Structures are given as structure tokens and as C-alpha cells.
């Protein structure tokens, strides 16, 4: 006796959260059944393995049919085929677009192209996430990217509107899209200690301050691209390290202000010129696409690592950066105060976030 056909269709579509998770995690029906058996569900409900198999198959089929709609979440809301309560719809969407930290760290800043897709095999092996799940997550990134790529207005709002994601998840996607668009390097060994959250935090600051949308939301090239003009202007900051008087003045201002307040004052004093050079040079180099990509590598190399090797506590880093940015206002010869604030305001936030073990 073999079952040829076995289906269950409810007027309200039944969604089993546990099975949905297994499906999203890319398990085959057989694996999912095995995992469910291990969870002790048979003992709890008195069901048999055959029942579990049938139930799992059924849910998988439903999810498979829903997947097409999940690719365009507003469709899920308007479609008539599956009657699903709104709360469940939200859950389906949110979970579908959720991603694994390990996976996102692998592809963050990479071009969302076929080439990358081919590497998913390796990512799957490396992270232990099933290839199926990797593909889903990758396709989600790519889909969101494609939809919002050409759109005006706030990146987060656009994502939220077209994919009906929660605020938090929409922000994460904004970061992913932003990183993918600007191709920031995040995979270097030096950057491995950073979490997706660190990058997402930086991305948000950069979107808020460094993009075209930050200045004028009416502009065509909104939140995705960095403000080219601003990057060009950043060259002007070079004077802070090129002009020796200015550099010395800056140093003395900072040192005076921080004397006695910093545990690592001597180290700071010794390293000031190096650090300042590093930070300003990063700014000056941002005109080149390649250097933009290496932004995080540079920041870690030029600032985070030196400080870390001298064992700066985070509070000292904060004191230093605050004073370092603020003191520029007292440099009479320096004319680019607004530019400096736009650059350093964001950078200070980023650096503080990046500064950890």
C-alpha cells in the first residue's frame, strides 16, 4: 500500500512555525521529519512517524506554493488563494526575509551577482548553513537590491513599503543593499572580528550623512550611493595633516584638553600625528572607488589596530575622538568646518562601534 496522493487544505491556511523554520533552514522532508522526531513531538502527541511525514510534506508543499508570493510580499496580502490571518502573514514574511549572521557576513559588500551565487557552495560548507537556505538568503538580498536600486526616497522606507518588513529588518536590509552597492570590503581577515551589526550600524550612519539623500531627499540618486561631490570635497581636509602648523596646533589643542583625563595620554600624544594622518588620508582617498571599498580595512588598520595595540580603553577612544573632532573648530586657518563635521561625525560613530575585540 503506497500513498499516491495525500493532501490537506484548510480554509484558513495552517502554518506550523516549527516546520516553517525547518523549511527555511533548507532541510529536506526526510531530514525535517527526523529532526521533528528528535524534538519529541511523537511522544507529546501520540502520532506515528507516517503521520509526521505526511504532515511535513503537506506543510512543505504549502510553503512551496507560498514562496512565489513571498517574493513580492504585497502580493501575499492581496492574493485570494490562501486565507491567512494578518499576524501570520507578517510572520511568514519576516521569517522568510530573516537571514543568518554567519551567512550575511560572508556576502556583505560583495556584488550580488551570479559569480557570488556560485560561491554559495563554499559558503554553505564554511558556515554549515544548507545550500538551499544560502540560496534563499542570497536571492532575498538580490531581490530587495533590484527592487529598491532605482528608487527615490528613503532606503528603509522603500524596503519597508515593498517588502513589508519590520523596522529592524528593513534597516538591516538597507545596510546590506548599501554595502552591496558600494562594495565595501568586509571579508578581510582583519575585519573578521566585526559583526554584521557593527557594519549595519556604520551603514546607517553613512546613509544618514554621506549619501545624496542625506542632503536632499528629492535627488534622484537617493540613499544608495555616496554623495560624489562630498567625497571630492573631502580632499580639502588634507590640509589638516599637510599643513604642519595646523597639525601641531590641532595636536596641542587636543592634548591640552585631554591632559589628565586620558589613561593612555602619553600613547595618544606619541601617536597623535599618525592617527590624525590616518583618519584624514582615509577621507582624502575616498574619491577613488577602490579606496571607498577599502574604507573599513583602512579604518581598522589606521586607527583601530594602533589604538588596540596600545590598549586604549573604549572610553579613552571616545574622549579622544570627541576632542579630536571638536578641536578643529578652534583652528582658525581651517575653512571646511561643515565638511569636517559631516565626515567626522559619521566616522566618529563608526570608529567607536568598530573599536572592540
Amino acid at each position, binding site marked *: *500500500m*503506497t*500513498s*499516491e*496522493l*495525500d*493532501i*490537506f*487544505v*484548510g*480554509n*484558513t*491556511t*495552517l502554518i506550523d512555525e516549527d516546520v516553517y523554520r525547518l523549511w527555511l533552514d533548507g532541510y529536506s522532508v526526510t531530514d525535517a521529519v527526523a529532526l521533528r522526531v528528535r524534538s519529541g513531538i511523537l511522544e507529546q*502527541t*501520540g*502520532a*506515528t512517524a*507516517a*503521520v*509526521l511525514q*505526511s*504532515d511535513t*510534506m*503537506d506543510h512543505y*508543499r*504549502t510553503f*512551496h*506554493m507560498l514562496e512565489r508570493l513571498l517574493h513580492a510580499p504585497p*502580493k501575499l*496580502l*492581496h*492574493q*485570494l*488563494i*490562501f*486565507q491567512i*490571518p*494578518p499576524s501570520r502573514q507578517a510572520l511568514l514574511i519576516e521569517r522568510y526575509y530573516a537571514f543568518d549572521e554567519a551567512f550575511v557576513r560572508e556576502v556583505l559588500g560583495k556584488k550580488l551577482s551570479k559569480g557570488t551565487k556560485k560561491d554559495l557552495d563554499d559558503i554553505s560548507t564554511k558556515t554549515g548553513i544548507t545550500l538551499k537556505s544560502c540560496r534563499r538568503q542570497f536571492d532575498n538580498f538580490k531581490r530587495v537590491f533590484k527592487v529598491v536600486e532605482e528608487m527615490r526616497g528613503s532606503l528603509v522606507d522603500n524596503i519597508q513599503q515593498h517588502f513589508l518588513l519590520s523596522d529592524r529588518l528593513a534597516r538591516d536590509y538597507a545596510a546590506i543593499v548599501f554595502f552591496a552597492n558600494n562594495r565595501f570590503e568586509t571579508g578581510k581577515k582583519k575585519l573578521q572580528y566585526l559583526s554584521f551589526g557593527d557594519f549595519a550600524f556604520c551603514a546607517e550612519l553613512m546613509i544618514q550623512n554621506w549619501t545624496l539623500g542625506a542632503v536632499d531627499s528629492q535627488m534622484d540618486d537617493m540613499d544608495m550611493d555616496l554623495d560624489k561631490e562630498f567625497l571630492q570635497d573631502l580632499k580639502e581636509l588634507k590640509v589638516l595633516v599637510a599643513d604642519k602648523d595646523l597639525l601641531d596646533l590641532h595636536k596641542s589643542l587636543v592634548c591640552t584638553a585631554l591632559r589628565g583625563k586620558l589613561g593612555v595620554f602619553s600613547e595618544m600624544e606619541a601617536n597623535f600625528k599618525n592617527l590624525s594622518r590616518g583618519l584624514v588620508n582615509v577621507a582624502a582617498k575616498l574619491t577613488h572607488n577602490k579606496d571607498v571599498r577599502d574604507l573599513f580595512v583602512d579604518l581598522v588598520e589606521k586607527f583601530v589596530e594602533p589604538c588596540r595595540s596600545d590598549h586604549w580603553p573604549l572610553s579613552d577612544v571616545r574622549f579622544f575622538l570627541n576632542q579630536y573632532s571638536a578641536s578643529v573648530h578652534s583652528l582658525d586657518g581651517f575653512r571646511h568646518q561643515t565638511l569636517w563635521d559631516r565626515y567626522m561625525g559619521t566616522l566618529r560613530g563608526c570608529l567607536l562601534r568598530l573599536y572592540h575585540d
Partner: protein
Amino acid sequence: MPGKLKVKIVAGRHLPVMDRASDLTDAFVEVKFGNTTFKTDVYLKSLNPQWNSEWFKFEVDDEDLQDEPLQITVLDHDTYSANDAIGKVYIDIDPLLYSEAATVISGWFPIYDTIHGIRGEINVVVKVDLFNDLNRFRQSSCGVKFFCTTSIPKCYRAVIIHGFVEELVVNEDPEYQWIDRIRTPRASNEARQRLISLMSGELQRKIGLKVLEMRGNAVVGYLQCFDLEGESGLVVRAIGTACTLDKLSSPAAFLPACNSPSKEMKEIPFNEDPNPNTHSSGPSTPLKNQTYSFSPSKSYSRQSSSSDTDLSLTPKTGMGSGSAGKEGGPFKALLRQQTQSALEQREFPFFTLTAFPPGFLVHVGGVVSARSVKLLDRIHNPAFVGIMGNTRSYKLLDWNSFNSDEPETRDAWWAEIRQEIKSHAKALGCHAVVGYSESTSICEEVCILSASGTAAVLNPRFLQDGTVEGCLEQRLEENLPTRCGFCHIPYDELNMPFPAHLTYCYNCRKQKVPDVLFTTIDLPTDATVIGKGCLIQARLCRLKKKAQAEANATAISNLLPFMEYEVHTQLMNKLKLKGMNALFGLRIQITVGENMLMGLASATGVYLAALPTPGGIQIAGKTPNDGSYEQHISHMQKKINDTIAKNKELYEISPPEISEEIIGSPIPEPRQRSRLLRSQSESSDEVTELDLSHGKKDAFVLEIDDTDAMEDVHSLLTDVPPPSGFYSCNTEIMPGINNWTSEIQMFTSVRVIRLSSLNLTNQALNKNFNDLCENLLKSLYFKLRSMIPCCLCHVNFTVSLPEDELIQVTVTAVAITFDKNQALQTTKTHVEKSLQRASTDNEELLQFPLELCSDSLSSHPLPPAKEHLESASSNSGIPAAQRATSVDYSSFADRCSSWIELIKLKAQTIRRGSIKTTVTVEKASPVGDGNFRNRSAPPCANSTVGVVKMTPLSFIPGAKITKYLGIINMFFIRETTSLREEGGVSGFLHAFIAEVFAMVRAHVAALGGNAVVSYIMKQCVFMENPNKNQAQCLINVSGDAVVFVRESDLEVVSTQQPTANCQSSCTEGEVTT
């Protein structure tokens, strides 16, 4: 020009990409009704076109309005080649044809294609302007309401229940026409869908005409089925119960809402003498007189012998039981006489209803069923062609083929079966059959026609206009205190139609009851049940040799009696194993396949307090000398006894102990007895009646004499009860549970198994089938575990044998949650509560007339002088009436209010004619409905797609149905040539059923409704050809579209209502709450 149909195409959305180059679609719409077609403009390059068309107007006969569906086709415009069809929407405009239902159809409909499924949605608005047609000879029956619900719909009351209506139409199946060889599968499917839609429309119209002839205004329990007879054609047949319904003017039906109740109070005094002699001497009301004078000779002369004997024999019954003889005997006779006179005029006194207004059902005899095996190829025999000579005029549909079969052949077949049912009922001393249904099973050219129902004695008051109200009083006296009346035997004790063991009713101790009762109806609401009920199924397979035509039919008809016998035995065994004594909702399905017959019986077992405690099951071995064998036997016996004890505990069956002396008659020995009269015949008149009782055996003994019997016993014990927190039944509601919460989940589950052809023995087959059903149930319990505590209600199993080695089981049911704590309380305090209710109801009753009287005065600011007089006169009449009622109903708790309503209603009809009444009701209803619609709108507006509930039940727990919008009857075909790509057979069917649900919901929503009640999937024919990567499926569903309001919302409404009332009452009557 009796009607103008107006259609507007608003917009489309989610259309499929039809032009690969642009990834867009140039869509336009064709709107077709009858032979007229309109087109919208082409909306270029969009997947969400906004046509915003003008109103397309069709001027048509109302006959066409009833028959034809509105056909909307969405196409992709193509400049160079033929336009590609995207899909279609068929809209049945019937709901717009009667005033109380929907006024407009407006909403998003899924665009359906038989090959691709749903492809986007289209927004359509449809309206109908009807002109009154006073032509007496008209062919249309607009205005007759149809209900799938097999009880009186919730917001109506039955004035008269007229009786059985049936009709069938036959046509050639487009799938089997020569043209099918050259057209595409899509064209062929669409031709079929359209044809069936047309035929259903025609059928409904014809039934409507019959109802009008009977002076009814509605069909309740409407059941329409298709027989796909292959080469020999396509039959669409329907049965139903014609009624005259009156809308309750207010959604809060628990108050007898009547705008002018005082007027009919005068009619109430029940001075009718129960003695039959009075009829000849002097009838007290002129109307009753009319009834009898209508065909006096008929009603008396045609009294059948059974009732005559009864008249003379009942007094004997009475002697033993004292008072019962005096009252019950003559009354029974009177009732019979009256019922008979009412029913004799009908060809078939059948009722498709399964639940009845209180008081309708007097006695229940038992299940009656008849089957007949027919050869479809015989239709072409010259002998049958002869029948075509005496045809009525029958309008052929589109295909004007003369080969098409006349419906008379099938009519004759069904008439034959119905006749048999009628005679079986008579043998049980009953004049009517309730819970009646018909079905077919077709395999190649063999067709089994089946009909079954429950023989019953009915209260004639509902059957005929103006029949004696007096009997009411009598009837109440007889079985009011007991609520067991329906269990009492209707047949004559000394002349029993079959060997049965009778005892005195355990409730009233006056009348005789059988030891077991089988019925096809729902449990009457007033029946006293101990504990809970449960689903009981008997499953059976029988191998049969493959054979052709005549030989095949003979083989089948030879097998049928054995199948029926075994199914019956199984049911009886399982019932006893559960410790119960009655079955409700019994449905026995016999399915014929190429090489086997399948029998599946489902019913809900309960313990009726009025019936004796069932005896146990004893096992006897054949070889008593063998020690180990004996041990084995006793082991089995112990197991069985344990199971019975366990079940009693599980279903909370603890009947009060009754000692022998109290009963006054010996405690019945458990004994197998049958209430099933059956027969089958092979296109001939021979009627074989089968005695299903086990001869003279006193105790119910299972003899284990071979392995077969062993298997049987084993299978009895392998039926596992549902997991704790779950109950299941196949009736409307679960006996013993009455505190439903509002969560419901309707579902359809389909399973197909392939049998390995190697070891096909009856045992293996039985085991496979049994496992299939049990596993299916287990799966359901598992899937719905989040709803615990819950009950699966209206569990409906359908078996079909699509191919040699395939068995298909389809289940549709609804899971309803309930409150466990309350449930326990209620069962415990059931009796107390009902007593309380009785007293409160009684008080209410006393207040009614006065309240209502003042109501009526205030509600008619300018009453005509005549009415004024009337109400004044009835005012004076009230005290008497009041007294009368309070005496009569004192202990008849639940029914009181509705009784009053019915009586009033009757009086009203007598006085003023029903038309006037309806008018006043109508006036009030739009305001009320408007209110409710507004109130129910917000939740829909919140989510993008309004929720539409679906349920096979006639009600929605925790909610009140405020409006019936019309019948939903839809037929879909889906075909695929890429089965693997669509996820195999499971993926294909899963998607299709989901689409069918979606289309039903969309139609209901477009009618302005938020639920479908009495939903049923009547057919799910699935065929596959995996080698060709093809599959096809046909699904037919129906139900009643309704508007419901949550009871919690209703309370809010009713508190707000008074203000609205005050405002509106000044201008136009009142909105009754």
C-alpha cells in the same frame, strides 16, 4: 423584457505576463451573457489594468437570467496573431434575482483558467433590474430561494413545509463528443464547465417552478449532483424540500419578532378535540375543514391498511401502559390520519431536511434504504427509446443532438427507488421519510443508484396550511414531559416489520422503544443524551471479478446484500463497543470499481437516555475442547469488555441505574436487531427484503470459527479513539458539547493509495482500507492539535475508485473549538438548567403578549382603522390565550418562544395573507441590515482581503446569521500537462482545492457576505496519467452565502439599537430587535 443585467468591468490586478518581450500584458475583457458579447478597450502594457468600463447592459428574459451564467473572459490583445485567453470568470447571477438576497455583486474575482489555474484577479460590478412579470405561464421561477442548509435557515421560520421536489436534466457530455478530438483541452473543459453551469441553472429554475406550483417560496436542503456517465451522457439532478418561509424581521431571532403580533393571538386557543370523530362531526376552524374537504374521499379512502390496523390495535397497546393508551393511542391514530391525509397527496412524502422545527418530528422508525444496479448502455436499447414517446416537453441545450438521452429513463429509475423507499417506510408504520438523500456510483457502464432516509411520523401542522392546531396541544401532552417521543416506535408492536426487542421507554415509561435506533438525521435538539457522542465508521471491501455489462451488473447485485449486511453488523458491533445505543447521521456509501466494491458507513453514535442500555458483546469459539484456544477466547472477551468500559468512561456514559420493578417490564436482553430495510434490484421490479437480524440468537454473540471472524474482532479493537481533547462526529454538532467558542477551521483532505496487486484478498483489502481511513483521521487530529479542545463536526468521508488499484478517500469537515470547563458543567447540570430555562421561558411567555402588543401599537403610528380594531379585540383575547399557552408549554422549555412564533405566524397568514406580512417585514429589514453591514465592515477593511469563513454546518458558532445571500453552486475543471512541474499529483490537487476555496470565498465576498454555511464538496473526481505527465480533476461545491455578526458585536448593536429605533420609528415602522 423582464430583466436588465448591467455589468461594469473596473480593473484587473496581478495579471500574468503574456508578452515575454516587454514582460507586460495588453489586456481587455469580453463580457458575454447568452448570445450577446461586449468588449472593453485594450489596456496597454500593464499587469494591473484599469478599464473602468461603461455599464454593459443586457436585456434578457428572466428565464435566461436563471439559466445562464455571466461569462467574463480576460484576453491579451495581439495585433498579429489570435488574442490569447488569460482566463475566465463565471458569475451566477441567481442571488440577484430575489429581493431579500444580494442587491449587487461587486468585488475581486480570481481569473480562472482550466490549464493554468488562477491567473490574477478582476474587479467586476453586476446589477440586475427586474421587471415584474405577471404571466401565469411563465417558465421562470425568479424569487424562489434556494438553501443548501438541511434545516430551516436561521433567520427564517417555516410556515409550511410542502415536501419533496426533484428534477433532473440530461445532456451529452462535451468531453465525449466527436468535436473533442479536434479541440484543445482548454476548449473542451470550458465547454463542460459552461454546460454544467447552464444545466444547473435550468435545473434550479425547473425546481423553482415546481415550488411555485406547490405555493412555496423556497427550497431547503437543496442537493444538486452530477453523474458523469461517460459515453452515455451527463446527468444533473437535484432534490430538495419545498417550504414556505417567512423572514424573521430581526437578526435577534430569539425574541419572537413580529411587527403586529397581537392580531393573531386570537387564533391561539387550542380547543381542538383530539378525538378523530370530531373531524366527521364538526371541525372547529373553517380552514381545517377546508383541508379535509379538499379531497375528502382521498384522505379517507386511501388510508393504507397499516394505519387501519393501527387504529384497531393501539388500544391494546394502551392496556398495558395505562394512561398512555388513553391519550397516546387515539392521538397516534389521529396524527397518523392527519399526516397521511397531508402526505397522501404527495407522490413522495420525503424531506431532505435533517433537523426540524421543534415539534415537527413525532416518531422515528428507522433507516430505510434502497439500491439499484443499472446498466448505462441500456439507455440505447430500443425498449427505452419507446419511453421517449410520452415525454414532456424538454428543451435540449446547446447541442441539439437527438441522440441525447431523455431524462425520463433516469426519472423512471429514481421513481422506482423512491417508490421502494416509500414502501419500506410504510412497513415501519411511517408516512414520511426524513433526512432523505440520493447518490450514485458509476464505473464504466454500471451504475448503482442509492437512496436512503429515516422513516418517520410527522406532525401535520407544518405540512399543510391551516391544519389542525389542536393536535399540537395533544402532542405536547403526550411527549412533552419526556422529550423522548421521537424514540417511541411508530409501528405496531404486534405486527412488527422485523424482529425487534421492545421495552418501555426509559424516560416516560409509557411507550415502547426499540433497543437500538439508527437514523440519517441530526440529533433532535430536545433529545436527552447521556455523555458525549462519537464518530462510528464501518468499512468494508469486497473483491469482484472483472466482467462486462450484464454479468458485471449481476455480480454486483449479488454482492450488495452481503456488503450491506456486513456494514450493518460492523456498525452494530462498534456501537456496542462504544456502549451506545443510537446512531444519527448514518450515511452508507457503496462505491463500485472495476474489480471491487467498497462500503463505507459513517454515523454519530450516542447514548439516548430513552433507550435501554446496550448489552455487551460475547465471543464464542467453535472448538471448545482446545484449552489454549479457550484461553485465547477468554482473553479476547476480556479485551472487549475492557474496551467497552474504557469507552464508557471516555464518552462519559453513566446512565442512571434503573431497577427492574420500576420499569415494569423485563430488562431487555441484548439482542441484535435491524432497523434497516433494504433491497436491491437489477433494473427490475424484484424487491428482495433482507432480514438483517441474527435470527433467534438471544444474546449478541460473535462466533469465531475461522480466521475471517478473528480478523473482524481484531479490527473492532484496533479502532483507536481520538487523542484526548478531540471529539468527532458526522452530525451538525457533537451531542453533549454545547459551549462552542468561535474558532473554526474547515478543511478538505484527500488521500489516494495504490494497492499492490499481488496479494489482493478481501482481508488484505479490508485492512488497507481500514488503515487508510484510520491514518487519515490520525493525520487530521495531528494537524489540528493546536485547536484542542476541539471537535471535528460534520466529518464527511467519500470513497471513490478512480482506477483498478487506486482507492481515493476525500474528507471534508470542520474543527470547532469549545470551552472544556464549561462543557463539563453543562453536561452535569443539563437537567437543572433545562428546568430553569423552562421556568424563565414561562415567565417570559407570560409577558410576551403584553409587550408585543404595546410594540405593535407604537410601531404603527398610523394603523388602519381595521387593524386597530383587530388589535383591540385581540387585546381582550389575550388573557385566555395566555392562560392556554402557559399551561401547554409549562414544561416545554426551549421550544416555547419559537412555538409562539409559529402559531402567530400561522394566524397572521390566515388573517392577512402572507404577502402583506412580507411587506412589513421588508420595510424593516433594510435598515437593520444596513446597520449590520456597516458594523461588520471594519474588520474587513483592516486586512486587505476580507475573511470569509466556510463551514459544512448550518451555523457559525458564536455568531448570528443575519442574512442569506443566495446559493453558491460551482463547478470547476482543472487539467495539467505538466504534472511533475506542478509538484506531482499532490501538488496539483492541493493547488486546485486551494483555488476552489479561493473562488468560493471571492464570490461570497462579492455578494457582500462573510461566510459560507452548509458548504459541501459534492464531487472531487481525480484522474491521472503519470506516464503522460497529465492529470485532470473536476470539483463541484455548494453552500449558502451568508452575512453573520459576532454575538459579541451583536450585543453592542442591540444596546445601540434603541436610539436608532426611536429615530426611525417616527418615520417608518420600527426596527425590531
